[in-house]
């Protein structure tokens, strides 16, 4: 920069005339501060015009400490990946996303309190996140009360989009009834007719068990018995030991560390050799497999997402998502895990929110009805925003329908056995918005 300014009249007068008194200096400083402050207070449209767009404030509730922290950490990777990509591409309608992360410590009461804080103090425009079903259920009325759109990222409890559905909550991924519709025909035709269901005894596990029991019966099969095991039971063997009798397959519904525990201990007492071993894909998530070792070999499951690059997941969009997720997961876990369905569903839920905002011209909470209208019936096309595949967000219950993968674990890796199209996992909507 040139030094010419020193020779100009105003500078000479200011600095060299000997008239720069403390009063003048403070006065000039105050005027400068005032001008800066005024700039900050200029209404958003003007600021946008000057290139300082007001960000969309998006909240995300995740369990980053406590019992479910492992899942929360990977789920947050998905949300953060989507936000970074959106901001890198110039934001939504020219406005960046400001992500406000709240840790609910894996507790429903804390979740509800943190949701209130995001809504009242942080004044978020929308929410995308949630991991534990009981926390999602506890927080849904809070979002509804404040009339803020809530895009769930992981919670799978069926009632979220059935008996407890509300106009503000959307689930852009699958739920148990539609997975059961997709998996039960395979189970009963290829694996066996009689099943014993062992499940995590809480909101998600119970509703998933009911969904599979219904579909197994519909396919001419039979549920010989059920065993519900409380969340966080470290020694499941006394409960698994009771499972015996004349049935073909053992069907497991667990996630996270309970998924690791059931796989290890069911194998140890010979259940997975004696019976066909199948279940919800959450048991054999990529983040669980290292701790299950060879005890999960041969497990057959269903999942919306598995970390493979085989057809039909051998698309450039999925590879891009996969590579980015692997790099980011490596940063939070030195063992370098592959992405799981929690990364995928959070990533896609945030992108669905982006598409909804673009489509509706949503500016803030006042436009929530427009955003809801845009999201209802939203068609999500396979591509960079939705690498898992096409999906549609039903208007009737805010539940997405999407394709599923039946897989087997072989040599510690997922192998696709069958791909079930979204049209073949349809389950009638059972929600009435009040």
């Amino acid at each position, binding site marked *: 920069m040139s030094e010419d300014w020193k020779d100009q009249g105003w500078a000479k007068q200011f600095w060299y005339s000997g008239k720069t008194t403390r009063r003048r200096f403070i006065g000039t400083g105050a005027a400068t501060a005032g001008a800066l402050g005024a700039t900050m207070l200029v209404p958003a449209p003007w600021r946008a015009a000057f290139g300082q767009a007001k960000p969309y404030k998006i909240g995300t509730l995740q369990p980053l*400490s*406590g*019992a479910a*922290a*492992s*899942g929360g*950490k*990977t789920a947050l990777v998905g949300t953060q990946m989507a936000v970074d990509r959106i901001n890198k591409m110039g934001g939504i309608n020219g406005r960046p996303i400001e992500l406000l992360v709240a840790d609910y410590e894996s507790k429903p009461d804390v979740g509800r309190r943190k949701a209130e804080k995001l809504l009242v103090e942080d004044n978020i425009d929308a929410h995308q996140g949630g991991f534990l079903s009981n926390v999602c259920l506890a927080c849904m009325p809070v979002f509804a009360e404040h009339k803020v759109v809530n895009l769930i990222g992981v919670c799978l409890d069926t009632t979220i989009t059935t008996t407890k559905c509300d106009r503000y909550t959307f689930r852009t991924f699958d739920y148990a009834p539609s997975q059961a519709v997709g998996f039960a025909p395979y189970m009963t035709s290829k694996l066996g007719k009689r099943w014993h269901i062992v499940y995590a*005894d809480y909101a998600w596990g119970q509703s998933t068990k009911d969904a599979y029991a219904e579909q197994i019966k519909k396919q001419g099969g039979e549920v010989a018995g059920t*065993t*519900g*095991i*409380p969340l*966080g*039971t*470290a*020694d499941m*063997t*006394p*409960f698994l*030991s*009771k499972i*015996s009798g004349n049935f073909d397959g053992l069907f497991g519904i667990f996630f996270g*560390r309970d998924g*690791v*525990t059931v796989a*290890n*201990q069911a194998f*140890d*007492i*010979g259940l997975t*050799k*004696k019976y066909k071993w199948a279940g919800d894909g959450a048991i054999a998530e990529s*983040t*669980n497999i*290292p*701790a*299950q*070792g060879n005890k999960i070999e041969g497990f057959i499951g269903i999942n919306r997402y598995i970390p493979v690059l085989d057809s039909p997941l051998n698309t450039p969009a999925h590879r891009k998502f996969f590579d980015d997720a692997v790099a980011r997961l490596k940063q*939070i*876990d*030195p*063992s370098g*895990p592959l992405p799981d369905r929690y990364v995928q569903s959070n990533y896609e839920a945030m992108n669905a929110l982006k598409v909804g905002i673009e489509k509706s011209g949503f500016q803030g909470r006042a436009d929530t009805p427009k955003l809801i209208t845009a999201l209802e019936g939203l068609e999500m096309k396979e591509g960079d925003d939705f690498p898992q595949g096409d999906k549609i967000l039903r208007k009737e219950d805010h539940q997405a329908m999407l394709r599923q993968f039946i897989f087997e674990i072989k040599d510690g890796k997922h192998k696709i056995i069958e791909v079930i199209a979204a049209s073949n996992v349809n389950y009638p909507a059972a929600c009435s918005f009040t």
Partner: protein
Amino acid sequence: MEIPWDIILIQTVNGLVTGMILALVASGLTLIFGIMDVVNFAHGELFMLGAYMGVVVLTTTGNFWLALVIAVLIVALLGAAMQITTLRPLLGRDPLNTILATFGLSLVLQNYALWQFGPVARKIQEPFTGQFTLFYLQYPWYRIVIAVLSAAIITGLYLFLKYGRYGIWIRATTQDRVMAQAMGIPVPWVHTAVFAIGAGMAAASGVLFGPLVGVNHAMGLDWVLKAFIVVVVGGMGNLGGSIAAAIFISLLEAYASIWVSPSQAIIVSSIVLILTLLFRPTGLFVPTPK
């Protein structure tokens, strides 16, 4: 109604195995309380850190037994450091201070593990994978080994306390701290050693139990609550009582699960706790106070 003897016998084995693991976790806890009057809320995290140390050493050496020994030593040293830096300055203060301090430590250790090792659960490969037939089940030998090893470690601790020179120091400190100090026993160092032994026992149980569950940052949470119940039911600070309570509660839960759902069966321990607090607050397995 026909009595299902096969299931009763299977559940007896299960109850004894679970009881011995629980006894090992609880004995460290009760030892620390008995000597130091410290309710150690970080005990579950020492269990978890032991398992992680086991993973690290096992990955490096490939030897499970070496991993068990080294993990115990490392966590015992960590326990000693924790006691010197965090608990020793609080000696003589309101017990609430130590509760808050150990609770804070538990949060720090849990989040440290999550940060250091990441969210993916790790595996400890058991040293052998054989099974034997137990009625309709293939029962893993490793579970029996865990129970036997737990019993051996607890017996070793008992013999050390009963006959070892330093064990006598520890018992003297338990009986009368001031008199022990007057007799020349270095009470602050006894406290440190006891905390280290308790931490080492938690680490041993973490390594031994790791192969059954996978190692993760929250694995201590699942055990420590039940260990606290066991310590209260057995009589706070009473080693023998804690062991008896651990086996008693585990057997009750195992038998209950024959007839009721697991969710109802695990309530048994809470019921025993409530009844103990109501009718025998000093603990079920201690002599009636005169």
